[in-house]
């Protein structure tokens, strides 16, 4: 039995790389450092070889590909052919018989659900901080999150939170967003717009071939430890000139809701709290739909000009 404390964990003869694909080690470290109330439980995370599984009665409350989630006496269990993850408020136990996409998805779901028990809610978004305020860029893979984040980071006083995953919660009553540390992933097209960046190996992100960028190397000393959410950006690829359209709180909420639907399930713990956080983001931030035209790639600084102006309106 082993507990990941770095990028790799060894389980018997199996090595699980938590650093890039799952981001669990960094994310767990991040979660342990988050502000917490005195009543919040300490979270431990254990990885073990897959053993015997007691059959669970009761209906499947959520499915994630081949994975099925069922309620247990104290939490939830996610089972797949080669994976079994037990999630309780104080303890996450990951049983694996292999290391692949199934295990990575299970670990990511477990992490997101465990974070809920601590009052922090995963949002599929990039994040950039400037002067204490955060621009959260939300959308599916391929929507342009990384392009927008890199463009905002061209401002010398901007700092990075994440290019894909953040957690949002309240610290001392104030809404706060913290990035889950992992490498940035950019397409070759995006990279061509930022020639100063150095990319490492190539990986597949769903249907997209992407290059890995280590933000600690590309933006040294510019990691943000957290910020107050100020602007929600929902990018999409368009054919015309780049433009931002203001969204109402209800429209912004609906856009936050769509990618979260899988994790908003009756019987899954924390759904009500998750909705409250999404509602708070939609209510307290300025929100824009950003149509990314070809000019966003040829002149990415227009993104900073446009989006920082939106944030300045909130002052």
């Amino acid at each position, binding site marked *: 039995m082993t507990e990941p404390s770095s990028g790799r964990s060894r389980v018997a003869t199996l090595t699980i790389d938590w650093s890039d694909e799952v981001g669990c080690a960094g994310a767990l470290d991040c979660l342990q450092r988050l502000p917490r109330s005195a009543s919040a439980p300490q979270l431990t995370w254990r990885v073990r070889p897959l053993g015997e599984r007691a059959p669970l009665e009761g209906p499947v409350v959520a499915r994630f590909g081949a994975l099925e989630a069922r309620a247990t006496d104290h939490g939830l269990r996610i089972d797949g052919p080669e994976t079994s993850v037990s999630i309780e408020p104080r303890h996450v136990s990951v049983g694996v018989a292999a290391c692949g996409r199934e295990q990575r998805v299970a670990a990511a779901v477990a992490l997101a659900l465990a974070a809920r028990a601590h009052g922090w809610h995963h949002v599929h978004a990039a994040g950039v901080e400037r002067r204490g305020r955060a621009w959260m860029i939300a959308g599916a893979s391929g929507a342009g999150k990384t392009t927008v984040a890199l463009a905002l980071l061209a401002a010398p006083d901007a700092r990075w939170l994440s290019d894909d995953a953040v957690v949002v919660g309240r610290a001392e009553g104030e809404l706060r967003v913290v990035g889950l540390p992992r490498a940035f992933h950019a397409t070759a097209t995006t990279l061509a717009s930022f020639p100063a960046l150095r990319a490492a190996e190539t990986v597949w992100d769903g249907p997209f071939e992407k290059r890995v960028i280590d933000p600690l190397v590309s933006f040294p000393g510019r990691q943000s430890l957290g910020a107050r959410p100020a602007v929600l950006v929902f990018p999409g690829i368009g054919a015309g000139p780049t433009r931002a359209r203001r969204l109402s709180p*209800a429209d912004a909420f609906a856009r936050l809701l769509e990618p979260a639907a899988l994790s*908003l399930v009756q019987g899954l713990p924390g759904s009500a709290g998750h909705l409250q956080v999404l509602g708070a983001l939609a*209510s307290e931030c300025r929100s824009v739909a950003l149509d990314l035209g070809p000019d966003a790639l040829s002149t990415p600084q227009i993104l900073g000009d446009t989006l920082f102006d939106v944030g300045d309106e909130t002052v």
Partner: protein
Amino acid sequence: MTQVVRAAPRVLFTPLPDGGVLLDLETKVYFTLNATGAELWSQLARGPSDRVALAAHLERAFDVTAERARADVDQWLVELLREGLLVESAG
């Protein structure tokens, strides 16, 4: 016999400025409420009610005529019952 309505247990309400959003956790249908709808939902969140009581509440909360309040409540009930966001039973 009075028809009593209650919020479907699988539906969650999220307040937003000038209203809110209902999400059905089973069907993933979400439904935007304006300020009037959000007020009615908040009333139902306190317990089951009927169209007469809801209309009376609306009349007081928004200072509208009884006729207008009844019409608004009737339309609201039809829409939410159709979407399965409310459950109706004999009172």
